[in-house]
C-alpha cells in the first residue's frame, strides 16, 4: 500500500464515522458539528484527488456557509436542543433494504469498470485547473448556459427564502 492509500483509508473511515454520528447523535448542535467533520473529510478527499480548488470551495461554501446556517437554524427554532423522540420508526427495515440494494447495485455496476486497475494519466505540468474551469464556464461551446442558469437558480432561492420569511412575519 502506498502512503496515499493509507491516508485515503484513514480519511474515508473518519468521514464515514462522522456521517454516521450525524444521524445517531441526539444533541442537534453536536450533529451539526459532526456534519462539519464529514464535510471537511470530503474536502480532504478532494485534495488527495488533486482538486484543490474544489476542496477550498467545499470548505468555503459547506463549512463557512451551510453549516453555519444549520447551526443558526437549530439554535433559532428549538428551545430543547436534545431530541428525545425515538430514532427509528417501524419502516426502518425498508430503508435499510433500499440502502443495501443500492450498494449491491453500485458494486455490481462498477465491478467491470476498468478504472480500478488503471492509474490515472498524469496531469501535464503547467496545467491550471482553475483557469480551465473558467474557460469552460464562459465558452459558448461548453457550460455558459448552466453558468447563467445557476445565477437564476440562486436568485430563485433568495426570493423564495425572503418570501417564506415575509409571510411568516
Amino acid at each position, binding site marked *: 500500500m502506498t502512503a496515499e492509500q493509507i491516508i485515503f483509508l484513514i480519511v474515508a473511515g473518519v468521514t464515514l464515522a462522522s456521517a454516521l454520528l450525524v444521524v445517531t447523535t441526539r444533541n442537534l448542535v453536536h450533529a451539526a458539528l459532526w456534519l462539519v467533520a464529514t464535510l471537511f473529510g470530503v474536502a480532504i478527499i478532494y485534495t488527495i484527488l488533486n482538486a484543490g480548488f474544489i476542496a477550498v470551495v467545499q470548505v468555503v461554501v459547506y463549512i463557512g456557509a451551510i453549516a453555519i446556517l444549520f447551526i443558526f437554524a437549530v*439554535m*433559532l427554532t428549538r428551545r430543547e436542543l436534545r431530541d428525545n423522540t425515538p430514532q427509528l420508526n417501524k419502516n426502518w427495515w425498508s430503508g435499510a433494504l433500499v440502502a443495501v440494494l443500492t450498494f449491491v447495485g453500485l458494486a455490481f455496476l462498477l465491478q467491470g469498470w476498468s478504472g480500478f486497475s488503471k492509474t490515472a494519466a498524469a496531469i501535464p505540468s503547467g496545467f491550471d485547473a482553475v*483557469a480551465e474551469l*473558467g474557460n469552460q464556464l*464562459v465558452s459558448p461551446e461548453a457550460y*455558459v448556459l448552466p*453558468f447563467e442558469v445557476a445565477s437564476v437558480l*440562486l436568485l430563485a*432561492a433568495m426570493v423564495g427564502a425572503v418570501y417564506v420569511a415575509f409571510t411568516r412575519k
Partner: protein
Amino acid sequence: MNEWLYVGLFFIVGLIIPVGAIGVGWLLGPKKPNPIKQSTYECGIEPVGEGWVQFKAQYYIFALVFLVFDVEAVFLFPWAVKLNQLGLFAVVEGIIFILILVAGLVYTWRKGMLEWA
C-alpha cells in the same frame, strides 16, 4: 508530491501548538474548583434560567442572503482568473451573472428584509 500535503502539515502543527500551550497551562495552573467559581458568569448576580436565549429570526435571513452571495462569488473566481484571455463576450456574461443576483439583493431590500427590526 501533492502540494496539499504541506498544507496538511500546517493544519497538524497549527493544532499541536495550541494543544501544547493549553496543556502547559493546565499542568502549571492550580485546580481548586468550587460551585461558586464554576457557576455561569452573569456579572456577579446568580444566573437566571438556562444559558439559552431566543434569537431574532433576522440572523437566519442574513445567513441565507450570505449563502447565496457566497456561492455566487465562488462561481466568479474561475471567471476572473481566465478573464485576461477572454473576449468582451465573457465579460458581459459575468456582468449578467452578477446583475441577476444584485436584482435579488434589491428585491430583498425592497421587501424590507434587510431591516433590523
